[in-house]
């Protein structure tokens, strides 16, 4: 199963085509194992590079920074994007709809949304990371600094010097 690192890059394309057959085990920080298809796991750049390096495919990948609840949700995203084709307009529309529903569900639980965002950042799942950060950014949009502080539970900790600078910035704006 392990390939030489030199040949790995060349073989990556070929592997991707027949990757549906290979299964990869991801382990959360509580020790719970999740078995996913390789195509699904390849959504994560972190895992993709580890697979391509030919390392611990059989042993599975321990993910010490991700808990089970978050990992399950992340895998839900990866399965959808990794295992489904996105060539036709219909397929792309279906994926877009999945993304929309996925993020709407996450948006209701902000703490969990942050967890998923951190996991996507750690696993380098670009699509998921873009989706969640954009969702958080949308909550900031159009708010005054005061409203932002309230919405995110931020304490006001700016010094008098900062305030002076801000005032100056405001007069120019």
């Amino acid at each position, binding site marked *: 199963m392990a390939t030489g690192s030199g040949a790995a890059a060349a073989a990556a394309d070929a592997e991707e085509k027949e990757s549906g057959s290979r299964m990869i085990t991801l382990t959360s920080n509580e020790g719970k194992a999740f078995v996913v298809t390789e195509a699904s796991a390849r959504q994560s750049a972190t895992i993709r590079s580890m697979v391509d390096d030919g390392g611990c495919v059989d042993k599975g990948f321990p993910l010490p920074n991700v808990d089970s609840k978050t990992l399950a949700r992340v895998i839900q995203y990866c399965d959808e994007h990794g295992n489904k084709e996105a060539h036709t307009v219909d397929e792309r529309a279906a994926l877009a709809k999945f993304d929309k529903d996925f993020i709407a569900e996450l948006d209701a639980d902000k703490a969990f949304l942050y967890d998923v965002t951190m996991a996507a950042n750690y696993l380098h799942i670009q699509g998921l990371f873009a989706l969640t*950060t954009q969702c958080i950014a949308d909550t900031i949009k159009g708010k005054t600094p005061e409203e932002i502080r309230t919405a995110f539970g931020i304490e006001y900790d700016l010094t008098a010097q900062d305030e002076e600078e801000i005032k100056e910035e405001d007069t120019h704006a």
Partner: protein
Amino acid sequence: MTRATVSPPPGRGAVIGGYAHPATMRFHLLHAAGEAAARRPGSLGLFVPTVFRVQRVGDGAWRDVPLPLLEQQDDHAHAQLQMHGARSVTLHGNLHWLVQRGGSAVPGRLQVLVFEPARERFQLMEAPPRRHGEEDDLARSRIVVLSNGKLCAVAVSRATSTMEMWVLDSSSSSSSDTPRRWRLDETISAVTRDGRDLSRTFTSETQVELAHGDREGEEVFVRHDDGRVDAYSLRRRKWTRVCVARPKSGSVGVALLPHRESVADDQPSFGEASRLLDHTIDIDMALARLPDELIQDILARLPPRTIVRCLAVCKAWRSAVSAPTFHRAHAAHRPAAVVKVTSKLACFGKPWHYSKALLLDTFRGRWYRGNVHTTPPSPRGIAIPASSSRPWRHHALTWVVGSWDGVVCVDVEYTSRFFRFGPDLGTQPERREREFVLWNPLTRACATVPPPPGDRGRWHGVIIGAYAHPATMRFHLLRPPRAARNVACSSRRPSVSGESETTPGARFPSWKRKKKTATTTQACNCSGEGEP
């Protein structure tokens, strides 16, 4: 972070308190099992405890604690206690509840139930005296602890629409023999500023808590069943409405909870029961804290107008937006806008002086559209003032060299050819100087860089590229040489807290020769793509 789960003892009941044992610091829970009090007007939510139990968390077993001794001379109807769901109040390490003597038919007098964790025993203490003509009403009485460490009883009277604050004076001798006295400290009108009478809606479920803040002093918070919270400032003697509840689906069991963080040194311990739960979640989801490492990635997705606002949110956000890495992250998420850079002569200041001004105009949205004449230097434009040390300098020509990593680079040439008057007209040789002006329109930071020596003559070097170094984020300019070797200038990346456009005179180290042509060429390619 430690957490534990504890299973309740048999029978109906409620956890009425918890504490870390003063000696062992093991966390204990107090549980009272009993039955609901007999139905009486206003007695909803009251219960009669029959068994008190305590558990050392981690041991898994509940131990019975003897009931407080009730005086036997009372008749049977008074040999009962009634409690309500209000939380225990901790003072001097002891837990306090307000209870009412008496059973189903005859309501008795109020007393304060005290639990001493060190000795694990209950005691009864006198409550504030009864007012004339009024019955003691447990449902409308609470106890809180004032910030000066005194027990305070709050009694709401429906008849007079008032709230009475009784304070227990601790005797100076502090010997247990001298009886401590309750004193009526203040009578507060229970009618708030918007005309609502709090005494009307006060039930046994209403929560009363006391908090102490720097600005408002001590405040009594009253939370009603409908979610409305009112606060009475004891310092300003005024009611303020803290929040009007908007019942949301999914938000159940919202409660006021005075909370103090426990310090690490004597943190209560859960013993063997630690770490049984998988996941802790924030109670108020809207206030979940944004992880610091995500701030930059999230803010990078905002439109520029909002980013300027983010500068005024807090320190962490301010530094995130000002960080040099931010600009590249931001630029990567924004569609490349076509900007129009106008350079024009503008006059401003007193005494007036003329200055070359650059205006940045985008065709997308209204970003940086403005008038430099009225408020120079405006954030949408940058004024390049003529140096006072070299009064002959006048702006002659500007070339917009390019925009790299969010920084606009302009090549400015100064000359003495224009505005030259006086007897030396035509006698002095023409002087020329050049400068590169670097400007970040988003952060309004600006810097000027002189060209390398030997570049002042007839031959004008051209800046072919610029980039922020991927590791150091120092801004670099690239310039092809006449000879084979490339020359680059290293300058600090302008940042928001650094140089502002009013002092664009920040000079940077002299031009350095790059040793390896290959590396410079490579860097140049990278900067061309904008994403090294």
